[in-house]
């Protein structure tokens, strides 16, 4: 029922220069690894990227940075990437830093038909400059607006042919909201299964939000391996 792509190149071929894209993941967990590699390959330019982080120097969205494909980045924490700092300082890259909860809610709102909402996060900080402040029950809140994308590239553990998705553990993060906020949403999944194989009660993202899926093997690089100390 949904488009099942065979190659990652084919999955992103409609993407054009200047597109706004959302890319799932928290750090390197839950990123659509092969879709990002295909984007690097495609060399589409002047992207606006909405993602919590911007990868590391040699993996994830860091690869797009290295290839100078990003003009504007909207995220909450971008400290793991040296190319990022260089490009911001040179003026090549514009950054909009957004509190993580505001970012996730702006994306959720984008997919849920809500143009804006009020949140306490950022009141009294530099982020409040130029934003509407409204008081509810004696407390101030900032007006924040919804985010949508031309393409959302997300990652799930399992997807069926109706586009229903299930995520693994903390690899869920921003993926479900981005699925709904994309005009076109492509899901890279670790495993495509026959429709009906996922119990309908345990579907995280209903297939209505997903336009195409593709199976991809993940490297799952670990940013900070932390293990029990052996005595």
């Amino acid at each position, binding site marked *: 029922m949904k488009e099942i792509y065979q190659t990652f190149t084919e999955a992103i071929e409609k993407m054009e220069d200047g597109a706004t894209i959302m890319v799932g993941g928290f750090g390197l*967990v839950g990123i659509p690894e092969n879709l990002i590699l295909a984007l690097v390959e495609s060399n589409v330019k002047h992207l606006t990227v909405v993602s919590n982080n911007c990868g590391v120097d040699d993996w994830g969205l860091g690869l797009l940075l290295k290839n100078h494909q990003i003009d504007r980045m909207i995220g*909450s*924490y971008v400290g793991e990437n040296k190319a990022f*700092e260089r490009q911001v300082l040179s003026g090549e890259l514009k950054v909009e830093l957004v509190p993580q*909860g505001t970012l996730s809610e702006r994306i959720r709102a984008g997919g849920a038909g809500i143009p804006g909402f009020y949140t306490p996060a950022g009141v009294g900080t530099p982020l409040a400059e130029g934003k509407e402040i409204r008081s509810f029950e004696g407390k101030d809140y900032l007006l924040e607006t919804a985010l949508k994308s031309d393409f959302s590239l997300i990652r799930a553990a399992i997807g069926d042919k109706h586009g229903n998705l299930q995520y693994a*553990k*903390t690899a869920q993060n921003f993926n479900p909201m981005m699925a709904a906020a994309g005009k076109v949403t492509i899901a890279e999944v670790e495993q495509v299964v026959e429709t009906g194989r996922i119990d309908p009660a345990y579907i995280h993202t209903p297939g209505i939000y997903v336009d195409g899926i593709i199976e991809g093997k993940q490297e799952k690089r670990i940013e900070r391996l932390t293990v029990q100390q052996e005595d």
Partner: protein
Amino acid sequence: MMLKQFDKVSTREKIAIRAEREIVSGSYVNLGIGMPTKVANYIQADKKVILQSENGLLGIGRFPDKHEVDPDLINAGKETVTAVTGAAYFSSAESFAMIRGEHLDLAILGGMEVSESGDLANWMIPGKMIKGMGGAMDIVHGAKKIVIIMDHLTRHGEPKILKECQLPLTGKNVVDRIITDRAVIDVTKDGFVLQETAQGWTIDEVKESTGAKLHVSKQLIEEAF
């Protein structure tokens, strides 16, 4: 003032051990990235505490053994972790709904400056590369109680507890309590109130190293930790 030398590691440990006493059994707690995360190592075995991680986990467990590392399971500091029995996974939107909706009992976060009205600065230094605020600006408005743990002075020996913050704020009027290597100080509507002094520090020394008026609690405990 007499020069005192304390081992940095043991100082941090001391702060973490004192911060642990803020955690009430049966509560839901978010520990910030860095030093606050380490408070988890000191939670007493008889306390039942559920730790929340803003990347989408309620019920952070211990660090994994080598053979049980799961790259899909991390905390907000991107460290590999495990989940406790009874844990739940969810999206970032759900996670911050839980946070802003005041469902967490306590958050323990790091700080650069705290003002006497409870303003917190902990995310940027003008002129330095800004890495981002992550979830801090949401969390300070969410948990029912916000405890800041930090060194009493900057590396340059300047007070971090001030009448007004000099650095850009993370949140206004959000801090309830500060725990440092020298003292436990509450933020009240009347300003800072010294509740405890740490071993090796007198009331006057704490006052001297604080950049705002410091009231002394009638219930002050000296050399409390």
